[in-house]
């Protein structure tokens, strides 16, 4: 319990620090009037907004108001769309989560078998190729791989559409692509693009983990008991390689959401990353600020969940921290 409490406190401190930094960037470094008031507004409107925002108040008062508004979910109103910035982001959130979840699934689907293969047969040619491919997977710039996927599968072969989200279906109040064939066709390339780096990472982790497990006494004992090789691998080697995979992937969830900005821009996937880039290009500051604060909150929650999951998977962590 104290463990959870401590993580919650840490999360609160991170959020507070981020809000202070964003506040500083907005109010202290830049001119808040320029940033928060639509430059096209007439002078009377501008004056009214300045008074309404309380920009004549002392700085710490302003920060308190800023925090209070943020806590109530008021992150400003979009200049371009004229609606609350937070609602714009929440509207786009399901698309991003769907993309990130699909990418994570693909990364595990590709990474675990390949990593296991390379770990169990470290000297075979296939394992060397897998190792080289994972090195390349780290070095290849993700956005460029996205373009090349479009070039090959959409332009040359014309198998898949180059972008967009395709047909969606309402499930539990969310419109998702994974329930329609057309949606799948649109989802496949961006998800693969986002998954490649993570797949390379999973290969590394599983390969190192299974090599290490093979040398352990419990594996030798399982073999001595006369278990079949497949039982040894699925029952003893694999589970022990998965703990670091869960930890690292948990830490990488945030990166997945951040890199979705790039993938969504390349494939025109209408998630919150594309919203951010559109907002940056249109100088729609409230949406940019709202995205940053929302992403920070999302990361804090994700990190917390991963810590809890990790404690549940590995009893040593739980014991050690109580």
């Amino acid at each position, binding site marked *: 319990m104290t463990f959870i409490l401590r993580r919650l406190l840490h999360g609160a401190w991170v959020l507070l620090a*981020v809000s202070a930094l*964003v506040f500083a960037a907005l109010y202290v470094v830049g001119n808040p009037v320029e940033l928060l008031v639509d430059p096209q507004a007439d002078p009377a409107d501008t004056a009214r907004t300045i008074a309404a925002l309380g920009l004549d108040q002392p700085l710490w008062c302003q920060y308190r108001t800023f925090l209070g508004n943020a806590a109530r979910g008021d992150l400003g109103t979009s200049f371009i769309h004229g609606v609350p910035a937070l609602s714009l982001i929440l509207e786009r959130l399901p698309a991003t989560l769907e993309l990130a979840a699909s990418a994570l699934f693909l990364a595990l689907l590709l990474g675990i078998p390949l990593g296991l293969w390379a770990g169990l047969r470290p000297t075979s040619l296939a394992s060397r190729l897998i190792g080289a491919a994972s090195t*390349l997977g780290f070095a290849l710039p993700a*956005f*460029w791989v996205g*373009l090349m996927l479009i070039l090959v599968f959409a332009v040359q072969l014309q198998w898949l559409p180059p972008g967009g989200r395709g047909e969606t279906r309402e499930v539990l109040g969310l419109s998702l692509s994974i329930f329609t064939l057309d949606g799948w066709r649109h989802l496949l390339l961006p998800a693969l693009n986002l998954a490649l780096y993570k797949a390379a990472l999973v290969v590394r982790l599983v390969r190192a983990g299974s090599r290490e497990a093979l040398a352990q006494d419990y594996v030798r004992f399982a073999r001595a008991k006369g278990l079949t090789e497949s039982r040894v691998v699925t029952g003893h080697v694999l589970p022990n390689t998965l703990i670091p995979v869960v930890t690292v992937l948990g830490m990488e969830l*945030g990166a997945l959401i951040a*890199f979705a*900005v790039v993938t969504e821009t390349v494939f025109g996937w209408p998630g919150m990353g594309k919203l951010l880039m559109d907002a940056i290009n249109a100088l729609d500051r409230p949406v940019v600020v709202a995205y940053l604060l929302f992403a920070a909150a999302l990361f804090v929650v994700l990190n917390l969940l991963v810590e809890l999951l990790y404690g549940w998977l590995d009893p040593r962590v739980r014991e050690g921290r109580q």
Partner: protein
Amino acid sequence: MSESRPDSTPTPTPISTSAGGGVAAPCMSRFSSSFLARFAANPAGKLALLLLALTLLTAFAGPFLAPQDPYDPAALDILDARLPPASAAAAGGTYLLGSDEQGRDLLSAMVYGLRLSLLVAGAGTGLACLLGAALGLTAGYFGGRWERLVLALADLQLSFPALLIALALLALSGPGLPKVALALAASQWAYFARSARAAALVESGKDYMAAARLQGLSHARLLWRHLLPNCLPPLLVILPLQLAAAISLEATLSFLGLGAPATEPSLGRLIANGFAYLLSGQYWISLYPGLLLTLAVTAITLAADRLAAVLDPRRQEG
């Protein structure tokens, strides 16, 4: 990574061993081998050295050999825009790799772009290393409240992906390459600070530091002449790894339109320029700069792995 455990079966072709990679080189001449010889003692090291030389030569000698100055508007002919590879230029000569949408010779633009990418990423990572080392060393040396503050700030940076931090800074401050370098530094310094602090903590407890302290040397001298040199190896190992990451990051930011301006394209910007014409099959504007970018990142990553293996004494023994 987690491969520091000495391999029981040394494999002869370690190209595939990659990241934690570099199977410990059998030390041929244990006493006289110079650093470079040790570095290139196995095929992975030789490959890394070759690719690194190729990248650096392209970036820093290439601009003198390039057929065109892509930053000089007078040298560009807009009528030559988007010609496929091996087309003849209006002014004579050939566009070996084609031309881009402003009529730039793509090969020349790539060579200049690589130099720009390396310079910006190098500046950002260098700054991150300086800042991180200064904060980390003083944190480990002085301890107390200062240490807690530095660690808390580093924690804060590390709880967000580098891309997001850089993106946030550029979104709030506007685009431009100097800002990209600063954003790279701001999103990378914590890695250096963490390991500098860890090294400083270990080194501070050693006898030579106690001896130096007893001589009544000033803090500045202790930090600069005694602590810093002994804390360098771990920093040298992360430096090239972060540089490779910074090159990718700069390319990504420039691709998103937050980095290099259209008139002086880095590799990421060149790829972005080609994006608009990809669907009409004019692939070369995006393809070739991306290949060069991959070459540069691979070269530096492999060299970083090899450097880590050479600098780690435990792997030398194996």
